[in-house]
């Protein structure tokens, strides 16, 4: 759907090209920020698959992200680099398995139960890393050696270099986006759209919707775990807050901000959220209030729900509706 029009392809190519050229002009701070945003965009895409495409409001996406990140750190011996080619699959597998376990239970519930239960299971994972010896304490764990990416003795990527990390994140974002775009046009993707629109009808037609939803949930967890791997390699540090429910909440805000039901909405949302954060954290504008930036974010969210239920992507439509309604009303008043 996303590549149907030639215009969209050109637009997407332009955005990718701009992102690819960005490190040439940006400083260290900019490269680091955009790397982080792109990783969160991958994570937001994983949630968009559930919320926007399948209609499952998951409030526990951070758990899969955090598990992926923790797995990278915990599976790396203290002073020895490990090949990314088995570290990444292992970490993604951990997140996938937890998603399979959680999904098989939470998909037995519906609607508001689903929201609460996904949140509760994410919290369960949070406590595993927060309280038990497995998580090595509440302060977090450092990754002393970043993984290696060698094939036959040739180093493909040096993860110690920020610019390399930037391009890895960009490639991951493009690959995830393209994969999901193709997936959504496939029979599986159309079946998810059908489940979102009318699950009862899908069952009547002969689709075992539970299996479809479980597959989507597990896939989404795998992608979130993948984002976690990228994050752990980039930051070389993990702590339990990666699994905290505030991240799950922020992710929901991102995909709504960008506009639900469109893949690029998740990407725009990740960038918009980061810009919003930078804006409210700016001391130049808000002075002492800058450290209370969440206040501004909270008010923005409230205003968005009240005024813009369709997100930024719905802004043009909302504006034109406003404009169309006003003259109509005054005309009605004159008559």
């Amino acid at each position, binding site marked *: 759907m996303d590549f149907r029009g030639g215009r969209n392809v050109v637009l997407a190519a332009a955005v990718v090209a701009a992102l690819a050229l960005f490190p040439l002009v940006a400083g260290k701070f900019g490269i680091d920020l955009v790397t982080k945003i792109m990783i969160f965009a991958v994570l937001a895409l994983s949630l968009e698959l559930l919320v926007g495409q399948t209609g499952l409001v998951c409030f526990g996406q951070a758990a899969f992200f955090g598990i992926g990140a923790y797995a990278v750190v915990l599976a790396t011996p203290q002073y020895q680099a490990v090949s990314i080619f088995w570290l990444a699959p292992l970490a993604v597998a951990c997140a996938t398995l937890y998603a399979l376990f959680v999904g098989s239970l939470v998909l037995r519930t519906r609607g508001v139960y689903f929201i609460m239960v996904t949140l509760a299971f994410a919290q369960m994972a949070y406590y595993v890393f927060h309280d038990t010896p497995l998580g090595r304490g509440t302060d977090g764990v450092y990754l002393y050696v970043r993984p290696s990416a060698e094939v036959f003795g040739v180093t493909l990527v040096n993860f110690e270099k920020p610019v390399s990390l930037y391009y890895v994140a960009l490639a991951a974002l493009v690959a995830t986006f393209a994969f999901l775009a*193709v997936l959504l046009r*496939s*029979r599986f993707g159309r079946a998810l759209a059908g489940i979102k629109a009318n699950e009862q009808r899908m*069952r*009547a*037609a*002969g689709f*075992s919707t539970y299996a479809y939803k479980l597959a989507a949930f597990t896939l989404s967890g795998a992608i979130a775990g993948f984002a976690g791997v990228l994050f752990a390699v980039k930051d070389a540090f993990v702590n339990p807050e990666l699994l905290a429910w505030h991240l799950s909440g922020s992710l929901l805000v991102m995909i709504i901000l960008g506009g639900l039901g469109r893949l690029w909405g998740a990407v725009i949302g990740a960038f918009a959220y980061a810009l919003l954060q930078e804006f409210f954290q700016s001391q130049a504008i808000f002075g002492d209030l800058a450290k209370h930036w969440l206040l501004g974010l909270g008010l923005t969210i409230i205003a968005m729900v009240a005024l813009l239920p369709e997100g930024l992507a719905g802004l043009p439509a909302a504006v034109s509706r406003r404009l169309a309604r006003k003259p109509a009303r005054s005309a009605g008043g004159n008559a």
Partner: protein
Amino acid sequence: MATPDVLMRGEKLTRRWGGLTAVDEVSLELARGSVHAVIGTNGAGKSTLINLLSGEIPPSSGRVELKGVDVTAWPQPARARAGLGRSYQRTTIFPQFTVFENCRLSAQSRLQRPWAWWERADACALAVEAARGAAAKAGLAAEIDRPAGLLSHGGRRQLEIAMCLATDPEVLLLDEPLAGMGAEETDRMLELLAELRPGHAILLVEHDMDAVFRVADRITVMVNGAVIASDAPQAVRANPEVQAAYLGHHA
């Protein structure tokens, strides 16, 4: 008459909700080549009966057989894939999709291939053909590219049937397909039913008595969840008990 080719059979189906018995020991057979109508007042348990047959809700007791196989424990999607199609009394479509996509998605259930993530859904010629065929049969050929949400009420009812046909079922459970249709649309729907009759076993729940007597080969009358008569239309019309309980209102 040759032995009827029974495709679906319900045996002593019962469904209780708390103290209320919505369906009470109902047995019926649906044979290929015949239209079996179920009539009764509102709340007589007709829709619940369809839900029991289609697998939407499990029976409190009793047994459902589909093409000779005991499917009582099967979930609805499995029964649907085995050749059972149903339509809903309250229109149940995908309003955001086009008419074509509504039908294509229904047809996709016959060839799901969910793992083939790289294949375009609309590249499957079989499903596309089945979708176009079903839409044409239901009289929606001209509106195939319209969003389903924009169809008229009658159009939506037609689409409901088209989606059911797109899954290529052998047994059709139709819950008030004529509700809210005009005279012309009703005629067309009855023609369609007559056309479908030879290859299918059809259960028709309907309030429109004229239509029922025009098309049904057999009529079952339900009152308070129980069957009070099940016979050929003429015999049912003549049945004094039925007249007292139900048809009397119309006579």
